[in-house]
């Protein structure tokens, strides 16, 4: 399954200017490369281990701060998805369920709970009167801002546990998660922009 023979195109080094800086940033951050992955498997797994360690710790901090502010972690996650979807149209319950990777009935129960707490409202969709959209209220947004503030304070200490190169390496794993690995379309687009 692994394409060990496939050597990912390397970023061009010749041009100067801002695009080249962007290219360097990209290659430093996102370029895991299949060859490197198989050749330096231990170093690659170390990056994964660091990325997962940081994720676990951040999630715990976020969940603890949510509870401190009176929200169960999953309700906090639901509120984040509702507010993050934008206030213009909000989010439907079925999309919310998909974004949270939970059953629709469960998402619907969470919306009801958030509604009782005054953090979201339901509104009939303008395009389809039978559909309802869930929208965050001002106090819902305020609640998120309070939790976010605490998270920012508490995450800082975590970041100092990793060296700069370790943080960059861990970020390359996240870049892979979002599809920024060297063979992705967006990586090719950035490379093409750097060459033009």
């Amino acid at each position: 399954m692994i394409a060990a023979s496939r050597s990912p195109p390397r970023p061009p080094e010749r041009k100067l200017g801002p695009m080249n800086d962007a290219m360097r940033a990209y290659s430093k951050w996102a370029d895991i490369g299949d060859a490197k992955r198989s050749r330096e498997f231990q170093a690659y797994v170390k990056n994964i281990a660091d990325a997962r360690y940081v994720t676990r710790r951040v999630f715990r901090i976020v969940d603890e701060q949510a509870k401190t502010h009176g929200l169960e972690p999953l309700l906090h996650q639901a509120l984040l998805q509702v507010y993050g979807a934008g206030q213009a149209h909000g989010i439907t319950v079925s999309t919310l369920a998909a974004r949270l990777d939970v059953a629709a009935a469960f998402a619907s129960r969470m919306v009801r709970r958030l509604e009782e707490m005054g953090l979201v409202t339901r509104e009939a969709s303008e395009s389809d009167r039978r559909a309802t959209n869930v929208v965050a209220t001002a106090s819902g947004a305020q609640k998120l801002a309070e939790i976010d503030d605490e998270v920012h304070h508490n995450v800082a200490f975590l970041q100092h546990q990793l060296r700069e190169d370790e943080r960059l390496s861990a970020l390359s794993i996240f870049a892979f998660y979002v599809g920024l690995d060297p063979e992705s379309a967006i990586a090719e687009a950035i490379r093409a922009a750097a060459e033009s």
Partner: protein
Amino acid sequence: MMSSGRTPVIKEDTEGHALEPNTVKDGTAELLALWGKGAHAASDLDFANHVKAIAHARFVLRKILRLLDEQAIAGGLQPLQHQALLQIFGAEGPLPVNKVADRLDIAPALASRLVRQLEEKGLVHRARIPDDRRVSAVHASEAGIEVLRGIDNAVHHHVNHFQRGLSDEGKFGALATFSFYLGLDADPRLALLLSAAGRQAHHH
């Protein structure tokens, strides 16, 4: 520990609903420019779009972590055994069992049980630490490394499919939030990368 007194910028309409500050359709470049400023600045400048990035990140991680767990199971490991094996092989040198617990954020007794299970499968070996004979440390066996390789290859194969469904906004919003997790969000290189991607998104 309480709030810094920072007042988030939340615009409201007359009914008390927070308003979307940026409703333009083709706003990807603007969003990326915002996220490139770092999580703290983005949170102050435009809280709604800061949360948008967080929401993307959580969605990506939820899907990817589920996919990883599924591939671990397909590879014959319980998800937490797989996570333990990753931490053990990823460590520089043999890892003491209490460090396994710390890295996985679990109780030492559970870490000890996981290590025993991995040992029985022949995926890790236990050794005494020369400096302190009372502490035992674990390292991955050749078979353990092979299992990790197999799961990793399967993950790479499956992740592609998921990523094809992600928008550019989703990808880069998630990346901006991950950068914050690692303390790299205020790094000017992130801003450069995001602005280059924004120009690309704008042209397509």
